[in-house]
């Protein structure tokens, strides 16, 4: 039974054009990422890489709604911040173990998001973005204007206890955080990969592409939306809690238009709705933003221009573009080897391919 089911899954996968990821490449990438703090022993570099990993988790969770679900949620940063604030507050006020606080932060975010999901469900695209965006702004303004001392107002919460690495030397501690962040990225990626290739993910994509048809085939929009919002928010909340614990502080400055533009740029440049897009985009924008560190605030101009160029020239992002390029390259190599008897080693290297000529 199980093997039959597995075979059908595999054949369905082939039919739908799902690529199975190249195990060798993924493994090499993972090993390289894991070895980074051991090879490049620079506090600052590791810190940036760690931040990038946290953003990757957040962006992956966001992509689940925005790209794969096609739900215009622009309030994910507030959900991220709620995770951080709740984790910080429960461990500051009640002395709850940081690991448990991580889960509690995620759960609180999931709860808030599931509640938001219900009014959003009734809205068409643009109205959903308006509602979620203004939700995020209201959360931000509420925190900033909070004078009760609960959230610390615009200065934020500080002194949030970190995960239990107090005995370690500072650089070892940072490495431990780095590997946990990497673990979070991997777990999130595996979860999202499984999710989008499961019947649930297929239902979600069907709802995105043709809501009426999907609903008529028995996909419940309500159930799917609440599930998507809650799971995506749980991931974002855990990322927020981890952020708060690593830096020991969380403030309203993680929300707002500035950060939002950075994250939207990451998602769009990588490719909305693709599996690798959020990760590639995060890495690219982080590298660009670090390369332009001397420009300080002006780097957002560059990020904005990159976002504008990407959306105008390649609205689906870089990952589909690269995949297309790769597929075309393979097709081109296959074409060349067919008329020849042997593999295409007789082809002179400097002879331009006809496609290249045509595309200019």
């Amino acid at each position, binding site marked *: 039974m199980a093997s039959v089911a597995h075979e059908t899954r595999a054949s369905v996968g082939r039919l739908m054009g799902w690529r199975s990821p190249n195990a060798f490449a993924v493994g090499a990438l993972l090993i390289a990422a894991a070895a980074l703090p051991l090879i490049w022993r620079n506090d600052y570099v590791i810190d940036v890489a760690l931040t990038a990993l946290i953003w990757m988790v957040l962006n992956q969770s966001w992509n689940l709604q925005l790209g794969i679900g096609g739900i215009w949620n622009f309030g994910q940063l507030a959900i991220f911040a709620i995770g951080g604030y709740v984790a910080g507050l429960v461990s500051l006020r009640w002395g709850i173990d940081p690991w448990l606080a991580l889960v509690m932060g995620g759960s609180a975010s999931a709860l808030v998001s599931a509640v938001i999901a219900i009014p959003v469900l009734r809205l068409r695209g*643009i109205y959903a973005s308006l*509602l979620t965006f203004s939700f995020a702004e209201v959360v931000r303004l509420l925190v900033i204007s909070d004078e009760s001392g609960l959230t610390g107002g615009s200065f934020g919460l500080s002194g949030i206890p970190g995960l239990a690495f107090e005995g370690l030397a500072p650089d070892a501690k940072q490495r431990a955080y780095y590997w946990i962040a990497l673990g979070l990225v991997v777990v999130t990626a595996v979860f999202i990969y499984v999710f989008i290739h499961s019947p649930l993910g297929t239902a979600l994509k069907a709802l995105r592409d043709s809501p009426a048809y999907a609903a008529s085939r028995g996909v419940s929009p309500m159930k799917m939306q609440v599930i998507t919002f809650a799971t995506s928010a749980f991931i974002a909340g855990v990322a927020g809690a981890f952020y708060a614990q690593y830096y020991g502080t969380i403030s309203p400055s993680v929300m707002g238009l500035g950060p939002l533009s950075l994250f939207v740029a990451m998602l769009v440049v990588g490719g909305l709705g693709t599996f690798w897009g959020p990760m590639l985009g995060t890495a690219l924008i982080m590298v660009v933003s670090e390369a332009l560190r001397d420009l300080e605030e002006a780097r957002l101009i560059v990020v904005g221009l990159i976002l504008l160029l990407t959306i105008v020239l390649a609205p689906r992002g870089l990952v589909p573009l690269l995949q297309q390029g790769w597929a075309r390259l393979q097709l081109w190599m296959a074409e060349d080897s067919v008329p020849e008897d042997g593999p295409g080693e007789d082809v002179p290297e400097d002879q331009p391919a006809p496609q290249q000529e045509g595309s200019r």
Partner: protein
Amino acid sequence: MRSFFQAVVSGLVTGSLYALMTVGMTLIYGTLRTLNMALGAMVLVGGYVSWMLFSGLGWGPLAGLAGAAAVTFAFGVVIQQVAVRPLIGKTGVDFEMTAFISTFAVAIVFANVALEIYGARNKAVPPVVEGRLHLIEGVSVSWHQVVMAGVAIVMLVALGIFLSKTRYGLGISAVAQQLDAARLMGIPVQRVYNLTMGVSSALAGIAGVLLASVFFVSPNAGDLPLLKALIVAIFGGLGSVRGTIVAAYIIGLLEAMISLYFGVKWSLPVLFVVIMIVLLIRPTGLFGKPEEARL
């Protein structure tokens, strides 16, 4: 009772300004199916233009109004050509989503260019007219606010006449109602798009000039007006110009009342709750129409 009347007056004034901002949003959404996030940036540009005319040349705010309208009109057309036009008709992507993101990118660029050129410090612009107008005992309104409301109302009326009486205005309405039919009737759709973006941006720019002397001009001066315009847009529904104007006044009055009875701090959260409730009952806003019928 006096404070109640005072709140009503200030609600009407802010309502007029919200109407000015959001009508542009409705127009663009009606014709182009684009939620223009760059309108906040146009408020910003309007404010800076009037500040530059004032501090550089010593010209008063009335020159600022004309200058800002001209500059933001041009910017609107440029944004249409650079950020929106290339996306029209692209297959495989959702146009509403990509246009939303591209105008958002434009807004980021504008805000940060302003930060780079003018710095983060607030710039002060003097009001159009000094002094206060006493309506009844204990209820007064500054002349500047009267001018604000007056300019906004005049602009809205002019817009109404433009849309219903002139060739180009009718073209905008036609494109909003039925794109294909409008095209078949020989309406130059690209020109209508440019015009819509230009007019809407100019309205936002004028709102920026009017706001500049109440608040200050700073690189994030466009954020709050944009947020308010979004709230009005959801509340009224992006359906009709008239509905948007009514919604703007309702939101303005509501905000004034909340500030009066609960405190300024609560105005946004309470508004948000109100909007949640409205959306739960009417998913396309108070006056919004379903997909088929618009404007």
